[in-house]
């Protein structure tokens, strides 16, 4: 059975931290950083993590097919917030996936994104599921002043794997496992520990990758000169081009690295680059995706005719273009909890979550499900036993708000309440079709808020209970950033 990718998209945080700003702050400490000071890197806001970015990317790819067709969910990351709580389960709720699905957290190496994709393809091919959602997301912390701080970026990419309506047919793959420890992050460690980059390049990338590609080509009966797109995320500048050239990929367009603007988004990077390649590819193109990390995955896809009519809801290119440069390096340190700074006493207030109350209100908290009165048709949030409009009791049906856009009725930018990104914006949001909620507004700059500003819903970190290691998530309003932003 032919399987492949039927929908694809990505999410890149709005802020792009200037590498020059990082270098300005840290090159006194490490003058070598100056050499990396070109471009920007994607910088998640304080209220984003690998889980919220995964939700955003996941929501985008199911806009077309709908959440109900998804029977398997593969969430890849090495930076998920919970070690023992199914992160894919949290994300599945926010994406409004059905409860009766297989959901997995997949991590362990930088290849986790392609491992997830390969697993989803195999399970679909085996008939275990009709469609699966694959999301790779990463938000890695790095010590201030480290080369990784310059190189890393935060982003997520997603695709739907299916046996129907595929835009990229899966041809085959090959994998090699090698315990080549270019870096590691032990249990409980904050940061990655790296070995010398020259050794990583010469013994790792230059040996493990070509060997796996060679074997992959041979096993799948593909000639190098038949490949149209050579997609290999690699932190070493120019190495992808050199590898392609040396190995005879004469026709292939070497997919441009995203390092200059986004940085290296870890497990999300291969899927992000694959998705961008699909945006640029034409039917009939053979795409080869290479993913490196304690070994190597090589995957081959063939673009189908459906590629022309099935476009991403937003797309990686639009996300690349939508960024806003951030030059305040201190903001990056604060957002990533990399500096001890004065938070004020209002940061001390304890907001312990009641897990039983949270569970009872699961529909409201996971995908912003309120109610609509069957007697008077008034949408309301939260749903209540008695209708806010006609007073009928138990007259409400579930009614989801997470995919609805709205406008700001009233707002404020608050400097008094504790916020990691002051002033905290919030206001009364009026949903299209009815219903309203006083909500936090995120990704908004001072001066940007105004009455009637159009917003969409995003799933974000509400607060972090450091005492208990608990993260609270909820929906926030975000100014619309893309003209194509639609309902999920």
């Amino acid at each position, binding site marked *: 059975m032919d399987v492949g990718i039927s929908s694809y998209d990505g999410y890149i945080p709005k802020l792009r931290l200037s590498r020059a700003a990082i270098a300005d702050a840290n090159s006194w400490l490490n003058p070598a950083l100056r050499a990396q000071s070109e471009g920007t890197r994607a910088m998640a806001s304080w209220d984003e993590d690998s889980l919220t970015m995964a939700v955003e990317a996941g929501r985008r790819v199911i806009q077309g097919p709908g959440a109900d067709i998804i029977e398997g969910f593969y969430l890849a990351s090495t930076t998920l917030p919970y070690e023992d709580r199914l992160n894919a389960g949290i994300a599945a709720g926010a994406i409004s996936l059905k409860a009766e699905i297989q959901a997995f957290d997949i991590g362990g190496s930088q290849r986790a994104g392609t491992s997830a994709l390969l697993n989803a393809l195999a399970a679909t091919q085996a008939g275990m599921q009709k469609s699966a959602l694959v999301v790779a997301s990463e938000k890695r912390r790095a010590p201030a002043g480290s080369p990784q701080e310059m190189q890393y970026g935060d982003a997520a990419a997603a695709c739907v794997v299916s046996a129907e309506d595929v835009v990229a047919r899966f041809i085959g793959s090959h994998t090699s496992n090698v315990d080549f420890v270019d870096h590691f992050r032990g249990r409980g460690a904050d940061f990655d520990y790296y070995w010398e980059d020259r050794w990583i390049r010469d013994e790792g990338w230059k040996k493990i990758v070509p060997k796996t590609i060679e074997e992959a080509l041979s096993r799948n009966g593909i000639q190098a000169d038949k490949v149209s797109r050579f997609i290999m995320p690699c932190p070493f500048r120019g190495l992808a081009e050199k590898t392609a050239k040396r190995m005879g990929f004469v026709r292939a367009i070497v997919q441009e690295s995203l390092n200059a603007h986004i940085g290296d988004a870890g497990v999300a990077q291969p899927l992000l680059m694959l998705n961008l390649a699909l945006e640029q590819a034409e039917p009939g193109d053979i795409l080869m995706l290479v993913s490196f990390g304690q070994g190597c995955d090589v995957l081959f896809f063939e673009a189908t005719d459906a590629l022309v009519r099935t476009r991403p809801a937003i797309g990686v290119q639009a996300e690349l273009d939508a960024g806003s440069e951030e030059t305040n390096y201190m903001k990056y340190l604060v957002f990533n909890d990399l500096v001890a700074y004065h938070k004020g006493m209002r940061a001390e207030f304890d907001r312990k979550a009641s897990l039983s109350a949270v569970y009872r209100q699961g529909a409201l908290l996971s995908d912003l499900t309120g109610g609509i009165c069957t007697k008077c048709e008034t949408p*309301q949030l939260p749903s209540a036993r008695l209708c806010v409009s006609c007073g009928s009791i138990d007259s409400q049906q579930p009614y989801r708000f997470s995919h609805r856009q709205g406008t700001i009725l*009233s707002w*404020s930018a*608050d400097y*008094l309440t504790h916020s990691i990104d002051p002033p905290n914006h919030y206001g009364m949001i009026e949903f299209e079709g009815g219903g*309203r909620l*006083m909500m936090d507004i995120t990704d908004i700059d001072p001066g940007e808020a105004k009455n009637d500003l159009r917003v969409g819903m995003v799933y974000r970190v509400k607060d972090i209970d450091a005492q208990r290691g608990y993260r*609270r998530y*909820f929906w926030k309003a975000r100014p619309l950033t893309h003209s194509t932003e639609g309902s999920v």
Partner: protein
Amino acid sequence: MATGIRDKVAILGMGCSKFGERWDVGAEDLIIEAYSEAIKDAGIETKDIDAAWFATAFEQVNVGKSGLPLSETLRLNNIAVTRVENYCASGSEAFRGAVYAVASGAVDIALALGVEKLKDTGYGGLPPNGMGPLQFETNANASAPGGFAQIASGYQAKHKLSREDLKRATAHISVKSHANALKSPNAHLRKAISQEQVINAPIIAEPIGLFECCGVSDGAACAIVTTPEIARSLGKSNLVTVKALQLALSNGLEASHNSWDGSYFHTTRIAAARAYKEAAITRPQEQIGMTEVHDCFSITELVTMEDLYLSEEGSAIGDVLDGKYDADGAIPCQIDGGLKCFGHPIGASGLRMLYEMYLQIQGRAETRQLSSPKLGLTHNLGGNPSRNVACICIIGPERL
């Protein structure tokens, strides 16, 4: 058929502590300060009090829960003491309990006392309101000024005003209250300020600046009430009686239904209409002589003038700038300085407002005495514009 509260209950005595940053005293001292004045004014003894209502809002930084702190501090005679809390209307709620107890005939003399010791927190502004576990999950990360800034945003949009239009009026309100407080020896903030200072002050929650926020204060206020007959039997004349006492609470409409446009206080309008009916007031702009309204933020006072039907809808800015609510205006507002400058110890505020009206009606307001005070109206608004408790009380001479 209910006949309302009008003239059924008289104020026998009142007291109010000095408000402010009372670093050197605790809540117990504030209670005694207000109570001592009230019991002396009433001309009775503690043993004559049959029941008490005790208002505190932030028990976590104040005296804790229950009516015990009042009973113990005043060594009350093992009478019933009920603690009430209804956000910023808590003091008025205590008054309501005492007034209704007397009106019902269940007791002869009742005490209402509110106290708040806010300056033991270690920081400026109010502590966070207590929330239930679901509210932690869903409520916006808001402060009190940010909550009330929503009404500024809604009012500005509804009436198509510029930020400067609004600021000019709210600045006038703040300047007026500061000027009034200069004549209130017990007020918290006693310093004249200028229009420019208000407009140029640091923003706390857009568009509300520092000088558009009320004082966060320690303080206590107290009322002793009885029937007019008992008051007269105790030798009192020229009684001040309760004309109306109305409480209106949001039921979720403003927060959850799209019909409310965010530009006015729905509950204040309802409470005002009910209060005027109860007090047989048909022309509030002519019949209400003075007000103490809930100016937690100056924008609240501005919008409230319309919701009390003292300004026509959309014309409060003009009325404020014309001086209608200044000390020498047609309907003086916050003659003692208001929450803005007298201060806002939450549990005490409703009673503090009544205290000023009571003094004015009795002609005992010293240098800030108005020439011919008629009915006095007090107004509290607890919560935020989309979810709140509004309380209106009207008092006046027994015989107008």
